[in-house]
């Protein structure tokens, strides 16, 4: 019996999260430029909810990965554990100029997503950019597993 099920679930999770990041990011940039787009706003709201749910799910895994590499990360599949470990590593080696995703408490990123303040927009965009980079890298493994290398 093959184990593609793990790769396909991880692939879809990452694709959905990347779509959510992009929709929200486009919305924030259009909003900053004063361009109104009701459908884009709707997609951004759905994306924001998807991201908040995911970050809440990821938070305890990240905390375990950051606090103590001797304790097992439990209740998550191998690909989600790897994502948490990769994010922990990114945060460990990031320079002071990194985004809130990398340099502040992880909860800050969730706060920014839920914030309606225009002054939080720039920080949130930086956080979304770093999350997109992380997920793009993470997704490569699943894409290779499912459709092979190019």
């Amino acid at each position, binding site marked *: *019996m093959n184990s593609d099920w793990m790769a396909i679930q991880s692939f879809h999770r990452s694709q959905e999260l990347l779509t959510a990041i992009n929709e929200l990011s*486009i919305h924030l940039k259009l909003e900053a430029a004063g361009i109104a787009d009701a459908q884009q706003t709707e997609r951004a709201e759905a994306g924001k909810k998807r991201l908040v749910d995911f970050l809440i799910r990821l938070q305890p895994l990240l905390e375990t990965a950051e606090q103590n590499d001797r304790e*097992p990360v439990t209740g998550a599949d191998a690909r989600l554990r790897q994502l948490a470990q990769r994010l922990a590593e990114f945060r460990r080696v990031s320079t002071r100029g990194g985004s809130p995703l990398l340099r502040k408490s992880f909860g800050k990123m969730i706060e920014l997503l839920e914030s309606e303040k225009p002054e939080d927009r720039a920080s949130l965009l930086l956080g979304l950019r770093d999350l997109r980079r992380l997920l793009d890298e993470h997704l490569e493994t699943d894409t290779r597993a499912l459709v092979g290398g190019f």
Partner: protein
Amino acid sequence: MQKQLRTQNEDLQRKVAAIMQSIGAASVPQQLEPYRRWLQDLVRGLDLQIERNLINLTRLGVDILPEVLDQTSIVTREVFLLTDRYLGPLLRAQTTDSLSLKLLAWMHSEHAKTCDLPVAFADGSFGSWPVESLPTLYVIPPGDQERLLHLPLCFHEFGHLLYACHRSEMDDLVKDLQEVIARRLEPVSRRDDKQAQREQQKRKQIAERWYDWTQEFFCDAVGLTMCGPAFAHSFSFYFRAIGQDAYQRSFAEQMHSSHPVTWLRVRLLADRARTMGWKDLADEIENDWQNIAAMLGVDEDYFGCYDDAFLPDLQKTIDDMLTESDPRHASAAEISFNGAINNSVTAPAILNFAWRMLESESSTYAQWEKRAVREWMT
């Protein structure tokens, strides 16, 4: 960059239009019509995303090119996946797909969370792509698609779908079990030297690996619950002669595998079969594996990855997962069915009948199976 992205998206647009045409033109068995409709919706969704990308490329003065590039990559990967995996089962459909499709459609129809999810299957070793919001793509070896004996293994794959449909609750149950296992692996006294650190890392690896393994044990239990003894016969028969790897793996090999050692899965299946009142079946499959292991000169050893002390907690967790996901139970009448076969006989009934026929009259089994399949499909 803007021009490159425009060309890229226009090409994607032509590609999805061609795919849409192929999907519409395919001649398929009736059972694949829901799958065809889903594929058409998916392609329409991709087309809309490409349209949005093209619109976003016309927005001047706002720097959204990184987002449009990423959205273009997302669509490109979806198209790769579509052409590589999802289209084949529709475009290459044959009339001989009907038996497997009937079984898969029946499985899905028997659960509230899966009855609206279309099914399809591709060629390959048994597997599945279970995502709760998408049709389930099963993988069935070509040699087993038109025969009854190993179709019970599809019930294991259905277990993965049930897990995905109840993920949050299932993950919580598995997490609790992983923590119990991690505690059981702890030594009585702790040192703090290099060797102790290595041992600690091994315990961490084992506890983490049990996430995937618990799901596999759960899927085996779903197979036994839904299909009855036919599942245990099929599982044991299919894997027992594969070779030594099914009986024993080194610690490192186990840590690299998302599946537990197959012999251990047989042990757990037998244990569960006994609790379901099928003692003879349990003894039979355990003896078969024990005899082959003895011939191969392999001892039962999981190198610290499993201990009998885990069993009560493990089976309790699987019981709780079954309660949560609520798969259909094969009835006593289905398990002992030996009546006339017709279109309305259930899948567990015909599959259990097949295994009893094989065991009682193996020399005439092939003829019986051919007739049984024909009568079930009419």
